[in-house]
């Protein structure tokens, strides 16, 4: 009924991502985040730029991340990878973000995640990026990804903050 032609040429995932991109550009997520597809012919790969939230060690930094979507999106979540990797308790040393909203549906081995925090098809790029912003401000060391960093964050906060600031400065210098 609605645009059957366009729908026929593109997969559900691509179409849904187009919608999300349209909504993000029409109604931007604050000034601190921008996101969009890397190339025109592949909607399944996006790049996001995130400004470090104010009042955190990440303040002043601009971090690039790659979003890779599965072909059955939105049934399954996408992955988000900071490139270059970011020092954070919930980010793997290779840059992959470990956050409950990006965990695939089905398994919740630790049973600590509440409904609103899990991935479901009603979530999207917008809600995930907002979660990542709050993750930057408040690391969750109970489900850490980078164990060394978790320890550092727990035991020696000033050193953690110093290293993050240093990394931010490095990023800006490059």
């Amino acid at each position, binding site marked *: *009924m*609605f*645009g059957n*032609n*366009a729908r*026929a*040429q*593109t*997969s*559900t*995932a*691509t*179409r*849904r991502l*187009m*919608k*999300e*991109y*349209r*909504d993000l*550009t*029409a109604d931007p997520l604050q000034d601190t985040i921008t996101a969009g*597809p890397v190339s*025109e*012919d*592949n*909607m*399944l*790969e996006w790049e996001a730029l995130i400004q470090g939230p104010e009042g955190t060690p990440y303040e002043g930094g601009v971090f690039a991340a790659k979003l*890779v*979507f*599965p*072909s*059955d999106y*939105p*049934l*399954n*979540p*996408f*992955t988000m990878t900071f490139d270059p*990797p970011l020092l954070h308790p919930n980010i793997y*040393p*290779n840059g*992959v973000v470990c956050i409950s909203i990006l965990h*695939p*549906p*089905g*398994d919740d*081995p630790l049973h600590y995640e509440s*409904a*609103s925090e*899990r991935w*479901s*098809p*009603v979530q999207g790029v917008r809600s995930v990026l907002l979660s990542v912003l709050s993750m930057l401000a408040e690391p969750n060391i109970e489900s850490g990804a980078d164990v*060394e960093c978790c320890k550092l964050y727990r035991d020696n906060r000033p050193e953690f903050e110093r290293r993050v600031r*240093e990394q931010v*400065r*490095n990023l800006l*210098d490059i």
Partner: protein
Amino acid sequence: MDMSSHPLLSALDEPAPFPSQYPQLRRLDRSMVCQICKEPFTGPVTISCGHSFCSACIRSSLEVMKKCPSCNETVTEGSIRRNRALEEMVDAWEESRPTLIDLAQPPRKRPAPPETSHSKASLSSGVKRARLSPTGSANASGSASGSRSGSPTKSRRANDVVVEEIDENEDDVLELTENDEAPCPLCQATMPISSIPLHIEKGCPPPKAKPKSNGVLGKGNQKADWKKVFSGQGLGGKTKEVEMKRITKPNYALSSPADLRAILSEYSLPTTGDKPTLQSRLQEWIILFNSNLDTSHPSSLSALRAKLAESESSKRRDKEKGKDEVVNQLASKDGLAKYASVKKSEFERLRREIIERDKRRKDAEEGKGDGKENAIEVE
């Protein structure tokens, strides 16, 4: 920046959004949208927790997890119920949306309001209106239109003329048949007389939409009638092989590829590929087929088959483009472990680098002096 011209979005045949000064209309617009596909509901259904989605959307979501995508409540496919009221609402909303968008435009952009065009063309339109109405009320409508325009003398004159013309053209009135065309008294769009009442009742949708249903009235109806007959026959004929009844899902774990092929051929679907391919094809077909039973605008079986083929090929294209494997790997706990073991050397290298960097930094701090510079240069 004007994103509507972006090449990526040009493929999206999006209806224009409501202007931002009407948040309530935007909200209404959003409420007609399925939260999974973000498009207006197609064959809306409600599940046990009360949330509604497109039939196809929630069916495919339940394949992945047996929970409501909105509230995470446990849901079974058996609780899916067709929501006819919502479907009616979405249909009505889609129909009236263009009109509302039009009305929501700033006044100067709107097409000239009927009053002004009316007084300008009071003579001619007066006649036409008089012709349209039954002879008895012609006089009344003529004077009504006259009194609305300009000064009393003018209206008197217009009135006289109208009445005269009606008298002269009395034969005309009788000769008009319902297939003759006439302008709508409100929006001046030309259309067959018989369709004017319905057109006005619908709030004068723009004439662009009209030709579709009324372009050639007789023919259009004929076509629709024949279609009905054909599809009815088609369904009747097909019931021998394909029952228009919900398909029950087979137990995929226990089915052999031959079992799956048998079901697929029952619905005249391709039976090529290995078991996972057959399974995903059948799963998708069951979703398409079952959700097609949840709408009052069902597609034909051949259209459904085309949709299935198209979705299969578009998914394949996406798979080639995307990095599905990596995504899938990272998505599961085991996959993540595997990925980690593969990349272990790299992790190890990075870790060593960090430790070394820390050490060097400590040395630098102890040495102070140009230590700071040194620390920044590492990486």
